[in-house]
C-alpha cells in the first residue's frame, strides 16, 4: 500500500541555521509533491509544489528537492527564524487520483 514517512520526532534547531525536513514515500510515483505548513489550531497552508521533472524549486528562504529515484523530497528553510516553528506536511500526488495523501508532518522548533 502507499505510504508516506516523515520524521515523527520534532526537529529542534537554532535561529539562523538551515532546517532540513525529509519526506519519503513508497509504492507510488507521484507526478508532483506539495509541502504545507500547519500552525497549532489552524488548517494547513500551501507552501510549494514540485513536479516530477523538476529537481529543485525555490521560494524566498524555502527550497524543495524531489528525487524520484530515491522516492524522497527534502524541504529546506535557510536562515531559520522562530516564526518558522510549525508542523510541515508533505503531500505527494496520489498517482492520478485527485485526492492527495498527507504525511503526518514533522514539527520544527526554531530556538532564538
Amino acid at each position, binding site marked *: 500500500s502507499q505510504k508516506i514517512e516523515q520524521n515523527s520526532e520534532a526537529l529542534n534547531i537554532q535561529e539562523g541555521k538551515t532546517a532540513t525536513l525529509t519526506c519519503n514515500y513508497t509504492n507510488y510515483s507521484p507526478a508532483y509533491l506539495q509541502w504545507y505548513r500547519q500552525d497549532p489550531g489552524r488548517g*494547513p497552508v500551501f507552501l510549494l509544489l514540485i513536479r516530477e521533472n523538476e529537481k529543485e524549486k525555490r521560494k524566498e528562504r524555502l527550497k524543495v528537492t524531489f528525487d524520484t529515484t530515491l522516492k524522497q523530497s527534502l524541504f529546506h528553510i535557510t536562515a531559520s527564524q522562530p516564526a518558522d516553528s510549525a508542523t510541515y506536511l508533505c503531500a505527494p500526488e496520489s498517482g492520478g487520483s485527485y*485526492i*492527495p495523501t498527507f504525511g503526518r508532518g514533522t514539527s520544527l522548533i526554531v530556538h532564538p
Partner: protein
Amino acid sequence: GAGVSQSPSNKVTEKGKDVELRCDPISGHTALYWYRQRLGQGLEFLIYFQGNSAPDKSGLPSDRFSAERTGESVSTLTIQRTQQEDSAVYLCASSRIGGETQYFGPGTRLLVL
C-alpha cells in the same frame, strides 16, 4: 476574495447526538474536500466533491458520516449518533479543480462528551 470558512469553530456535543458542520469554499473552486485530524495525528481524508460529479466517499469511516454539496457552493458534513472517537478537528479544503493546490479552512473542533 475571502478564504475557506467553516462553522462552527467549536462544537461540544453529547454522545448520541447528531452534528452538522458547514464549509464555505472559495468562490469558483469546483473541488471540495473534508478531512479529519485527531489530536497529534495526520490528516485523514473523508470525502471529495468535484463539480456536479458523484462524490468520492471512500474515506468516510462509517455510515454515520455523510456529506452534501449543492453545485459548487456550501458543503455540510453530518455525523449522526456521535461517539467519543469522533472527537477531532474537521477540516475543509477547496481547490480550483481536483488535484490542484488546496486551500484549507480553520477547521471545526468537535468534542463529544
